[in-house]
Each structure stands twice: as structure tokens, then as C-alpha cells.
């Protein structure tokens, strides 16, 4: 049973090169749920985001706190940790929400150790019970759901899985922007040499609504073109199970599963994937699962909402055409 609310909840804005990640809006919705009538603050480190007062206000922030400092233009662990530690000790938020992105996972534990803050990661639900924060999170390769309670150690830090919470409805609201500054002395020891965009990833796997994923059944790297074509038609991202990565057909960043990414899209289309526990650990949180496999006994069928026992080489090209036709028809 949820009791009470938190007086002030902060959301760290996840952004890169001016574009704000969807997880930020998901977190603003979650923050509002936990803060009730309390304050929700979007914390924006580094500049380059246009009109933050409007875009975060629309999604439920009461305030945007900005540190626009050249030392924060590029994410560095130490730069971000110093900024948040300084802000948190000045303003004492009850809870800081950070998205589970590569940067969020890099930052949150370091910040927690600096602040002596209690931390929970991979959250898929968050609630307040008896003055404690109660989070649930997948554990043991999604074979169990753990409940973690944070009591002491404020501000609490919760790292939240993407695509689990809905993006709140847009409201017509613009809010106050408060400028803050980074301490004069900040030691940033790592140097970002380069950030190289991966061109094919138009939608990051962890944020995609639809994922088309391939396994051993694709038989070779060239057949990933079938998935690419379907993905383009569906505006989806392309992933894989582990065997295509181990065989060198696709790079490691395609991999979904225990040793790769965890995803929870609206629809996961598994093509030629048998459904090893290792893979299921990364995708069984998908809202809907469609599986195409020629082996009727493939374990993936035990959790597929729609299972198609058939030849993906026959089905995929036809499916791509049918999707295009349906999209063209509006």
C-alpha cells in the first residue's frame, strides 16, 4: 500500500548531442507518482537542449535545474558525479531517479558511494511504503523478481529500466528554470577521445517499440538483411540472440540476453531464435512476443503470444511487403 509522498524527487535528464532520451520522460512520470503534490525537478547537466522549461514542464516537472558548464558538455563520470553531489548536498532531494543507460549505470553507483546514498538498480516498479522506497527488479537472469527496500541513506538513488514506465501525457505547461553552477575545482581524469555514432542504430534497442531479432536460424550474416528490411518497414530496431554474435555475423551490440542488452519493447519479433534461458533473460519483459521458428518444439513458443511454425526465409520477405502495404494504406 502506498503511503504518503516524497517532498522532492529529482530526475536526471539523459541527453546526448541535444536530443533527450525517452527514459527522461518516463522518469518524470514516475517521479510525479512518487512526489504527489511535492516537487519534481528535472536536472539538466550540460547545455545544448532546446527549450528545457517547456519540454520538461510538459511532462510533469515543476522546475528545471540546469548547470550549463563547458566541463559538462560531454558526459564524464567525474564531472557528472561532482555536479550532482554538489546539487544534492545543497538541496537535499529525497530521491534521485536515473535512467538505466550506459551513462546512468556508470554514474549512479559512483554518486551513491560519494554521497553514502542507498542505491537500487534495474527498477521496474517503485513505490513508497511506511516511509521506505520499495523497488522490484529482475534478478537471477529474470528467473526471480526481487523486492528491495531503501530506508536509510538519503538521497535514495534508483536506477530505472527504460521502456517500463509510460511517458506521461503532454500538458501545456512551461516551468521555472533555475541555473546552478559547477564547483570551481572539479577533477575530471578521463578524457573523451571520441564518440562515434553507430549509424545503423536509428532507434536504440533499449528504447525501440518494436524489435526484430534473429538467431542461429538465420544461418548466416547475409540473411540479417531480411531483418533489416522488416525493421525499416516497421520502424523497428534489429537485435540478435547470442549465437550470431559468437559466430561473428553481427557485432556484440546487437546482442539481447543475459550477456547482452535487456529490452522490453511493445513487440519483440524473434526470428530463428530457439529461446535459450540466456536469451529469454533479456527479452521476456517484452509486452508481446512473436516467434517464427521452424522447430515446433523450440522453447520460445512457450512464451510467444503468437508463434509461427514455419520457414522464416519464406515468411520474412512476404511479411515486409505486407507491412509496407498496410502502412501505405494508412
Amino acid at each position, binding site marked *: 500500500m502506498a503511503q504518503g509522498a516524497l517532498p522532492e524527487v529529482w530526475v536526471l535528464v539523459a541527453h*546526448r548531442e541535444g536530443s533527450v532520451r525517452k527514459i527522461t520522460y518516463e522518469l518524470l512520470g514516475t517521479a510525479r507518482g512518487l512526489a504527489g503534490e511535492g516537487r519534481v525537478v528535472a536536472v539538466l547537466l550540460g547545455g545544448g537542449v532546446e527549450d528545457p522549461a517547456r519540454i520538461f514542464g510538459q511532462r510533469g516537472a515543476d522546475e528545471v535545474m540546469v548547470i550549463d558548464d563547458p566541463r559538462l558538455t560531454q558526459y564524464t563520470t567525474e564531472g557528472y558525479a561532482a555536479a550532482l553531489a554538489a546539487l544534492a548536498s545543497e538541496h537535499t532531494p529525497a530521491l534521485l531517479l536515473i535512467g538505466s543507460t550506459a551513462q546512468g549505470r556508470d554514474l549512479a553507483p559512483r554518486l551513491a558511494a560519494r554521497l553514502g546514498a542507498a542505491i537500487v538498480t534495474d527498477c521496474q516498479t517503485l513505490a513508497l511504503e511506511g516511509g521506505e522506497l520499495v523497488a522490484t527488479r529482475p534478478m537471477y537472469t529474470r528467473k526471480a523478481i526481487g523486492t528491495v527496500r531503501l530506508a536509510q541513506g538519503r538521497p535514495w538513488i534508483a536506477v530505472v529500466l527504460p521502456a517500463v514506465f509510460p511517458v506521461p501525457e503532454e500538458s501545456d505547461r512551461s516551468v521555472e528554470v533555475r541555473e546552478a553552477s559547477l564547483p570551481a575545482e572539479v577533477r575530471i581524469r578521463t578524457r573523451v577521445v571520441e564518440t562515434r555514432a*553507430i549509424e545503423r542504430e536509428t532507434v536504440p534497442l533499449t528504447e525501440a517499440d518494436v524489435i526484430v531479432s534473429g538467431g542461429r536460424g538465420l544461418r548466416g550474416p547475409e540473411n540479417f538483411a531480411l531483418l533489416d528490411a522488416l525493421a525499416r518497414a516497421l520502424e523497428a530496431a534489429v537485435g540478435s540472440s547470442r549465437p550470431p554474435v559468437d559466430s561473428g555475423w553481427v557485432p556484440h551490440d546487437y546482442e539481447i540476453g543475459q550477456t547482452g542488452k535487456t529490452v522490453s519493447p511493445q513487440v519483440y519479433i524473434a526470428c530463428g531464435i530457439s529461446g535459450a534461458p540466456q536469451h529469454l533473460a533479456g527479452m521476456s519483459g517484452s509486452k508481446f512476443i512473436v516467434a517464427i521458428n521452424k522447430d515446433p518444439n523450440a522453447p520460445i513458443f512457450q512464451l510467444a503470444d503468437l508463434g509461427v511454425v514455419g520457414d522464416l526465409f519464406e515468411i520474412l520477405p512476404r511479411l515486409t511487403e505486407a507491412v509496407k502495404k498496410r502502412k501505405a494504406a494508412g
Partner: protein
Amino acid sequence: MNVIVCIKQVPDTEAPIRIRAGGGIDETGLNLVMNYYDEHATEAALRLREQFGGTVTVVAVGPERTREALRQALAMGADEATLLRDPALDAADHLQVARALAAFIRSRTPDAVICGKLSTDDNAAVVGAALAELLDLPQATAIAKLELDAGAGHATVHRELEGALEILEVPLPALFTVERSLNEPRYPSLPGIMKAKRKEIAVLDLAALGLSANELGPAGATLTGLATPPGRTAGIQVNGADPDAAVEAIVTFLGDRAKVL
């Protein structure tokens, strides 16, 4: 190049997990192994030793059974192993574990500390970066490539971001957590296994680490429950012998049920 690798013993990811009525998991008959990512961390350390000389020390926090995982790291080629074992660590949260590891590592002066990017039991990915902070070391997490320039005293690493690759230069000493694409861990050789059997595994409790209960800090995060996830059940199954009929079923599903078309 002296490297310390932090490892953990976890259930084999292929093993079924049975949840005990009173909480926690039933370890009876459960195959416990060295965390998968820690094999990659150990491998990375061994390669640094091969390239630059020095020693590889492995350390773990855990109960007595954790010796087996340390033994495996020794069999892979690590020089020495230490188990941090104390009743106060049995229900430790991640920050407390990091504080215990930090107390041990501070007594050495490693050029690098390497951890797996996460452990496959609780999946938290907290100890590595927390440890970097406690040791006041620069960090690079979930690295997919590591090149070390001992002369210049820095490492160049690759990290996978969402939709991008990040290349960082990190001055040594530093802490790294590693992704599985970093390397292919070696199998322990037979002589390696024999040699590992003869090696002493040092055991230190908090007193031996010089860490008071106060310095260990409170457990801010407590695991209070474990549940079996809601099972997914098989939905509709379609025979795809007729590909056009199968395609129609999929398109209808994507449109009407999943609402993405």
C-alpha cells in the same frame, strides 16, 4: 603492472532458481560458478601481466564456498587469492561490499582494478563504480576494448553507449569493469589446476581489514523478498506451411493486438 580482480561466485545462469519459502534461494544442488563477467575480468588482468609483467591478485567477498571461484581464477593463472569473509558481510548491500573491497585494495597499490560489468545473480552493476569512488580512482565501465600504454601511464578503452561507441583515455591507476566482448577467457590448464590446488587462499575478516562496523556503514538497501516472475504462457500458434496465411496472422496480430501497425 599489478592488477587486482574482484570476483563473485554466483549460480550458473543455466540452472533453475528455486525460491525458499523464507526468502532467498535454495542452494541445494545448485551449481555455483565464478560470475561470467569476472572470467573476462580475470582474462583481461592475465593479458596485462603477460604484456607488462607484474602480478594478478583476485579477491572476493562471500561465504566459505566462494573459495571455489577463487580457485578457478587461480587455475586460470592468477598469482594470489584472498577471500573477505565476515558474518557482518552476509547481508551486506553493494556499498558495504565495495567498502570491504576498498579496505583490502587500499592495502596494496595496484595499477589497475578490474571487475565484471555486473554479476549475473543480482544484476546490480553497483560494486565496480562504487569501488572506484571509494578508492578515488578514475573509472571506465562496461569496456569492450582495453589498450594500455604503460609508458604514457594511461589506458584507451571503448565503451558501447546506446547508438554510439565511446573512446576514453583513462590515466592509471584506474578501475575498469568489463563487457563480455572484451576478450575470450582462457580455460584453466591441467597444470594450472594442479598449481591452483596447492595455493593458499588468504581469508580476512573485517577486523583483519581494519574496517570497523562504523566504517562499513549501514545497509541502505535490503533485499526483502524474492518471487517467481509471472509466467508467460503460449498464445496462438499458427502453422506456417502456408507462408501467406502466416503473414496475414502476423500482420493482424501486430495491428489488432500489439497496435504497432
